[in-house]
């Protein structure tokens, strides 16, 4: 411990502490701009200058490390005048357009000027003019005049993202923050620079001029877009959700958010949202009353009997709602045919020691198994990037390489033809690592039963191994804990769909899932949804799966309900209602409660605890055939999926188009150039896609994005051979 005196008060702090932090611990406030708790000390803005005895000049508190016997003064006249001068200097070229600035009212420069600034400026010269309202990226607007060059955004980009997409351009008073070669700043984490900017230089386009800070009502909640569960603050103006910002949960997101989470909130106010329950009458869905809709559903459930009812979904519910659904299915209806799974993922609950996000910081080796966290769990990927910067080996096992050359990658070309499964490659890695019992963190997509069995072997071989499964639905883990998995004798989703297609199922109840897009066997799911005599779909939007629904039940969005859920670590995440649900719209739990009541059940608190499901209940998906030539592989993207992404207007500039990515050699062999439109045929199915090439895709694979509504990948069979035929370009007359 180091002893020092600040403003006459004795304190002792650990070695290496910054003077700024030692002072803040004593409750002494030192104003700063460039300092940020999650970025390295920098000392650009000079706002934190303090007097230190025996130092010839004032020192920056945010970069000076404490030393024994140090005497610091922050309350002298010289410090006050320095702060005043620093502010006067920062404001010398600042446009002072606070009335039109989105930051006005929550601006650090404004606040500190009110506290420490001079009443008037001595500068009489004309202000330096720079660019205003410049497009900076798909979501960000740049005002160069307001920038104080604190470089928080630049440092975030370098230290946290490791990308180098933003930097200082020009010199002297012409210095400005710009992007590399003027390209749009389109990293999936771009919105964080808006949170970081202490002034109004970088502002969000979707929030542009929507509100002023004093108009907003806020709640502390979490982002329910993926299974990471980032802490967030939600802001509403006049009951309209206008903004979502990151909150600092050290164990989870450390204040960062991805752009999907930050800008994907527009779905709640989408005009496409269902507003009233609908029933099929004479072949057409027509709006009806809740009374009638629920009566019809209850009647169908009663008539079907427990064995001919199937419930799919639950990974978008809160834990409380999942418990209600489990109660409704198991106790009230008495069916065992309950499954939260609707895609390729067979489990979201680790069957060896479960990891935490913080384990990634301590890992000696990170293995990504068929999982690209950059796309499916972006904020988790930030920790993987940090690990890469520290030199932690990261091994990727999957159809494409995210982290580029120089990192270990076991592409399918090394395992597919010879042995036929990811599991074999994983077994090889296990043998390689065996004996060195290190903290290995495995990040898995939860897909492939063979991998599941292979991972069970890791438990003995590597007791230090920790497993993180990135859920395909945000609360996949909570739904599994609530028992939304088939019980003994119960049918899993593939079996339910097969039964429906065969006519063995009377009622299929889809809760917040869209298997028409997410289930890998597109032909089966389409047939099943068409054939089932009574299909109930409970969702925000009329999804692809709702096309043949007999009852459509609209619900409240996650920003309109309160509860809790579990992220991929199994960590409890709170959810708080920001706005009331639109009139006449219950939340999922409300519908379950009403169905339970009408079916003669009782909602007693607490609900009986679910029987722990058998470890990863069987999930029989058809195995891909071993094919020769070019094979289909699919990849989950951040912005794939229907529902919330499609209906968030802010996300429209970044929505993926339908593409197929080939290794450059494969493309050259077929005489295909990037950007060319091809028809991809696989069996009887055809998709029209544009070609991309990347050396980071394994040769022999045709990589297709998953769950694009306009180009459903599940019409193709993963692993099957495909043929590509160029589509002649249509002549466009000038």
């Amino acid at each position: 411990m180091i002893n020092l005196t600040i403003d006459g008060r004795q304190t002792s702090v650990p070695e290496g502490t910054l003077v700024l932090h030692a002072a803040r611990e004593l409750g002494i406030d030192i104003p700063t701009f460039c300092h940020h708790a999650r970025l390295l000390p920098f000392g650009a803005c000079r706002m934190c200058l303090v007097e230190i005895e025996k130092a010839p000049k004032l020192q920056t508190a945010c970069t000076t490390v404490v030393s024994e016997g140090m005497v610091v003064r922050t309350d002298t006249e010289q410090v006050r005048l320095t702060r005043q001068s620093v502010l006067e200097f920062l404001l010398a070229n600042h446009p002072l357009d606070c009335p039109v600035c989105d930051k006005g009212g929550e601006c650090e420069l404004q606040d500190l000027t009110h506290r420490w600034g001079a009443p008037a400026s001595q500068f009489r010269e004309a202000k330096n003019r720079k660019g205003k309202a410049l497009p900076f990226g798909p979501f960000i607007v740049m005002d160069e005049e307001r920038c104080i060059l604190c470089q928080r955004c630049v440092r975030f980009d370098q230290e946290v993202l490791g990308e180098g997409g933003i930097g200082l351009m020009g010199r002297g008073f012409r210095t400005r923050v710009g992007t590399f070669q003027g390209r749009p700043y389109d990293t999936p984490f771009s919105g964080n620079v808006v949170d970081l900017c202490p002034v109004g230089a970088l502002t969000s386009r979707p929030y542009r001029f929507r509100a002023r800070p004093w108009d907003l009502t806020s709640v502390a909640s979490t982002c329910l877009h993926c299974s990471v569960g980032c802490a967030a603050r939600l802001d509403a103006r006049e009951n309209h959700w206008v903004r979502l910002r990151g909150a600092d949960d050290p164990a989870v997101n450390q204040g960062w958010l991805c752009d999907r989470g930050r800008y994907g909130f527009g779905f709640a106010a989408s005009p496409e949202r269902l507003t009233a329950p609908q029933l099929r009458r004479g072949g057409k869905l027509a709006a009806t009353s809740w009374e009638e809709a629920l009566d019809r559903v209850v009647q169908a459930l009663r008539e079907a009997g427990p064995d001919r009812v199937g419930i799919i979904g639950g990974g978008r519910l809160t834990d409380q709602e999942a418990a209600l659904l489990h109660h409704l299915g198991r106790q009230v209806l008495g069916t065992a045919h309950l499954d939260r799974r609707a895609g390729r993922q067979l489990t979201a609950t680790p069957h060896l020691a479960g990891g935490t996000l913080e384990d990634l910081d301590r890992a000696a080796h990170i293995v990504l198994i068929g999982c690209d966290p950059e796309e499916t769990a972006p904020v988790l990927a930030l920790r993987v990037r940090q690990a890469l910067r520290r030199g932690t080996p990261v091994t990727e096992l999957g159809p494409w390489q995210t982290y580029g050359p120089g990192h270990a990658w076991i592409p399918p070309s090394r395992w597919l033809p010879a042995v036929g499964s990811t599991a074999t490659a994983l077994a090889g890695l296990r043998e390689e690592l065996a004996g060195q019992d290190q903290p290995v963190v495995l990040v898995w997509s939860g897909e492939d039963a063979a991998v599941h069995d292979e991972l069970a072997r890791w438990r003995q071989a590597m007791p230090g191994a920790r497993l993180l499964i990135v859920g395909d639905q945000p609360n996949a883990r909570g739904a599994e804990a609530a028992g939304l998995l088939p019980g003994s004798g119960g049918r899993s989703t593939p079996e339910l769909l097969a039964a429906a297609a065969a006519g063995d199922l009377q009622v299929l109840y889809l809760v917040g899932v869209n298997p028409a897009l997410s289930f890998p066997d597109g032909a089966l799911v389409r047939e099943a949804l068409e054939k089932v005599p009574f299909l109930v779909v409970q969702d925000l939007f009329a999804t692809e799966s709702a096309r043949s629904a007999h009852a459509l039940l609209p619900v409240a969005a996650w920003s309109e309900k309160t509860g809790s859920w579990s992220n991929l670590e199994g960590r409890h995440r709170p959810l708080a209602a920001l706005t009331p649900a639109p009139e006449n719209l219950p939340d999922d739990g409300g519908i379950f409660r009403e169905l339970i009541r009408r079916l003669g059940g009782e909602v007693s608190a607490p609900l009986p605890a679910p029987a722990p499901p058998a470890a990863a209940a069987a999930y029989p998906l058809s195995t891909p055939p071993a094919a020769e030539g070019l094979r289909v592989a699919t990849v989950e993207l951040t912005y794939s999926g229907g529902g919330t992404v499609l209906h968030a207007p802010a996300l429209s500039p970044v929505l993926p188009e339908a593409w197929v990515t080939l290794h450059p050699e494969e493309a050259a062999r077929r005489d295909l150039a990037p950007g060319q439109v091809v028809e991809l045929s696989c069996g009887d199915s055809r998709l029209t896609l544009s070609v991309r090439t990347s050396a980071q895709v394994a040769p022999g694979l045709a990589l297709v994005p998953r769950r694009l509504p306009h180009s459903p990948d599940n019409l193709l069979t993963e692993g099957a051979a495909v043929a590509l035929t160029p589509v002649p370009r249509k002549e466009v007359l000038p």
Partner: protein
Amino acid sequence: MSEPVTPLVKGLFITLRYLFQKKVTVQYPEQKRTYPERFRGRHQLTRHADGSERCVGCELCAQACPSGAIRVVAAENDPDHPHSPGERYGATYEVNMIRCIFCGFCQEACPTGAVVLTPFNELAEYRRDPLTYEKPRLLVPRKEEAR
């Protein structure tokens, strides 16, 4: 007997005196007073000399308003057809005249001199809803429109 009568006579004398003085009231709807220039009556949104709106939608008037009578929603100017100079303008501007106490704080808070209180004060209505003044009624018409 004379004691109770004296005050009565005094009072009547005062009435009589005022009867022959100049009147302070006017026959209101037919006759109207002129108010001082700085009288605080109905609000008005003014324009710059070039005809563009002064209001930039900063909401400082709404923030300053002690009775919460003002609601402003800003929007971004279309660069080809801007409402106001700069990037931002007040797309919605509502003053609830029933709530307004005519204190003039909005005028004082306005950084662009957009909102001013005019001497006009004939605001009576038979219903409540027309008393929420929206932008078309508050904004000064353009010169060519006024003609």
